[in-house]
């Protein structure tokens, strides 16, 4: 038999190296399991049955609830105020944990412990991790908390990566000398900056602060409109400056010190204690998970930007970039298609560690009761409840945060090793 040919490109090589690292591989698999729990939390821990059959046929209340939340359908009258736990359906499939995080079990309120005798009809209904003061099931809250932890980690780091790559790449590739723009364009842009800010952000601020409280979709829609308007103003500035470039002095191109600007911005962000900055911003607005994610994202892009900048500083003088320039490709295309993809790998590492730290920050914020709305139970909030609870209450939520942080740290480690050519085995 012929030996199987190994793919020789960079990413297959990294994957192979990564797979050799047992710890990181296990971490990756456990993260997949946690992600599964997060995505399907509603089907794992819920007071409603996944499916049940009555005289009118099969029904799927959990799926229906998604429709209701999106405003697509409505609950039939007979289900709108129903106690799901003691129904007698012909056939029914209940989730693994028959409690929603909001279900209150009055028989087992006031911290019924996992080792205590609980007032439940069968082991099926046992609270495996106990209950909190109002009788809400801890295990169910933990399962649904996985979703929030993942969301905070992924969304905030997605935002941070976007900003980091954009600013880092621009600063690194253009440096202080390569980005040239006509004087007319710069002056026009500066003039239009005021109305651009006014119309796209200031006069819309009340809409945005309302949308933050409403829903994800609303908020992103509003942000998108704002950014769209802002870009529109910049385009307008460009169009208006076209005729002015005919005048010689105004038409001359000057280089913009974009690298210095980005560097100073990073310095400002790094110099203010990050946690304090986050607490201060979060304290301004109404508590909302979206805000927490946005703020964590907006304060954690500096590391990624530094990586990308350093890489592109090297890359921009390499032969293949010069070759692309000689072939007449635009700077944007060279950056997007060649320079950034070739220097993206350290970013992955920073993202893995960044998610770990975002989970930690969110945990701490809800631990001290800032930023997360009171009705949402997160791991951090569960942990904060433990101050007035029996000892076992502090174990599970803290361990969950620890596990998540460790797994992402291990993933980051594994990626570091896999991408390090010196580690070749």
């Amino acid at each position, binding site marked *: 038999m012929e030996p199987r040919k190994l793919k020789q490109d960079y990413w297959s090589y990294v994957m192979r190296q990564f797979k050799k690292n047992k710890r990181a591989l296990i971490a990756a698999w456990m993260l997949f399991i946690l992600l599964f729990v997060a995505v399907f939390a509603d089907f794992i821990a819920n007071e409603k049955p996944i499916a049940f059959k009555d005289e009118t046929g099969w029904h799927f209340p959990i799926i229906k609830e998604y429709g209701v939340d999106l405003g697509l359908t409505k609950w039939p009258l007979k289900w709108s105020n129903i106690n799901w736990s003691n129904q007698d359906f012909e056939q029914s499939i209940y989730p693994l944990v028959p409690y929603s995080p909001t279900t209150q079990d009055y028989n087992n309120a006031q911290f019924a412990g996992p080792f205590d005798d609980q007032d439940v009809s069968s082991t099926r209904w046992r609270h495996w991790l106990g209950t909190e003061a109002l009788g809400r099931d801890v295990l169910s809250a933990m399962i649904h908390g996985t979703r929030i932890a993942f969301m905070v980690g992924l969304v905030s780091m997605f935002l941070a990566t976007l900003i980091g790559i954009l600013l880092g790449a621009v600063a690194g590739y253009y440096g202080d000398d390569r980005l040239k723009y006509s004087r007319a364009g710069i002056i026009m842009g500066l003039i239009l900056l*005021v*109305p651009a*800010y*006014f*119309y796209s952000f*200031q*006069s819309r601020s*009340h809409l945005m602060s309302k949308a933050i409280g409403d829903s994800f979709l609303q908020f992103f829609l509003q942000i998108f409109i704002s950014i769209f308007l802002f870009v529109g103003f910049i385009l307008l500035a460009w169009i208006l400056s076209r005729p002015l470039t005919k005048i010689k002095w105004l038409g001359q191109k000057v280089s913009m010190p974009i690298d210095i600007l980005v560097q*100073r911005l990073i*310095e*400002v962000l*790094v*110099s*203010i*204690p990050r*946690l*304090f*900055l986050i*607490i*201060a*911003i979060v*304290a*301004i607005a109404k508590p909302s998970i979206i805000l927490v994610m946005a703020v964590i994202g907006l304060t954690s892009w500096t590391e990624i930007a530094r990586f990308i900048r350093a890489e592109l500083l090297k890359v921009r003088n390499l032969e293949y970039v010069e070759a692309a320039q000689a072939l007449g490709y635009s700077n944007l295309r060279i950056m997007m298609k060649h320079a950034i993809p070739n220097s993206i790998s350290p970013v992955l590492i920073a993202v893995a560690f960044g998610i*770990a730290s975002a989970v*930690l920050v969110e*945990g*701490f914020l809800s*631990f*001290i009761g800032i930023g997360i709305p009171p009705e949402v139970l997160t791991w951090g909030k569960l*942990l904060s409840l*433990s*101050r007035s609870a*029996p*000892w076992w209450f*502090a*174990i599970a939520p*803290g*361990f969950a*945060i*620890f596990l998540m*942080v*460790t797994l992402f*740290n*291990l993933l980051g*480690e594994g990626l570091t090793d896999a991408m390090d050519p010196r580690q070749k085995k």
Partner: protein
Amino acid sequence: MLKYIFKRILIFIPTLFVISLVTFMLSVSVPGDPVEQILGGGGSAGEIGQSSSKLASERSYIDKRKELGLDLPIFYFSLSNQATPDTLYKIHRKPHKENLERLIQSYGNWPQIEKYYLSVQQLELAIADLAPDSLNADAKIGMRDEMFVLFNQDHPKQINSSLNKMKVYMGKAPSMQTIRSEYDEVVSNYQAILQEATPNKNYIPSIHFYGANNQYHQWIVKFVVGDFGISYQDGRPVKEVLWKAVGRTLLISILSIILTYLIAVPIGVLSAKNKNSTTDQIITTVLFILYSLPSFWVATLLITFFGGGDFFDWFPTYGLGNEDDGFWVKAHHLVLPLFCWTYGGLAFVSRQMRGSMINSLSQDYIRTSKAKGVSESGVLWKHAFKNSLLPIITLFASVFPLAISGSIVLEIIFSIPGMGKLAFDALGARNYPVVYTVVMFSAVVTMLGYLVADICYALVDPRISYSSKK
């Protein structure tokens, strides 16, 4: 080199300027009214008393506000719209101002809104002046609650319902009829807002310039010459408050850094010596787990298990003891916080140590000294160890600012009145002078720390040079 340092310090100035702007804007935007916080009064609607005492409390409010300089415009200029008057900053109560802003946002007609606000104030005074009698006591309390709604709500539903409720209260006692005219004034002014609405004015920008007589200017000018102001909470100079807090944070940070180095350096050497052995792997794993343990969880567990929860009552979990307590009492207080401060950094330092030790052990001079018969420990400690210490020492410069500012989490949990807790509490209490000062201080320390770290790297590693930048 000197040129480089000079350049870096020169660059600090714009950065610090931006940081001062950011902190200033952030702390001013935190909702709540510092003046009310100081005077300790609730909302104006909750107070009981005649209009004279009401006016007196209003007077003291205005005086206090003036004394703190909060009656000035916030910044040199403001970008706003045609609907918003440039004198809005003169409205003294912050919640009222915010409510008026919301009204302007929806209706855009300041003259009408101003009239409405003045008439609501008149009504408040009239209610306060009502002579108490047996019939109107309940109605008066009810009226006051509704006043609070008028001052703080902007939604027509809420305003109308509270105006209707007032009508009911006024019917309850004959003496209430004396405030009828003020009430009618409010109703008609509110109707005027609704009918003569010009919301489009919100979309015409306008810029107002206020000149140097503004809050930011007043603060930054004093700050530059070292006058940090007075803490709102206890009236002490911020400088004094800050130095006390810095002292406590420094005490714990330095102790914990020393402990970290004392423990982590030998561990790093040990695992470098037995590179890739079982010992090395166990050490790495344990340190990795410690590194990933959330400090607020560990602190909570330690307090639960050793701080007099369900188990042992071995250690105090609150503060650092009194000032006149003896050494052992203070040390006793320090045990749990120090543990939490230290364990996370172990992995970081020992990994650096391991890395640089492995690097030195693979050098040629190590082989040479082994070949000439230097003992195992001699090679390890005399030759390799000495040469791998330098990068660890330079680490110190970057660890130090983190230790100064990164202590918010543990200081809050253990109630240690250091920098982190000071800043956190000040933010919650709208104690602006303390917030600015703490943030500026830690920003300066952080930037100096990075500068020192960069200089150290250059001193240690001759390959790094800052002077010849292309």
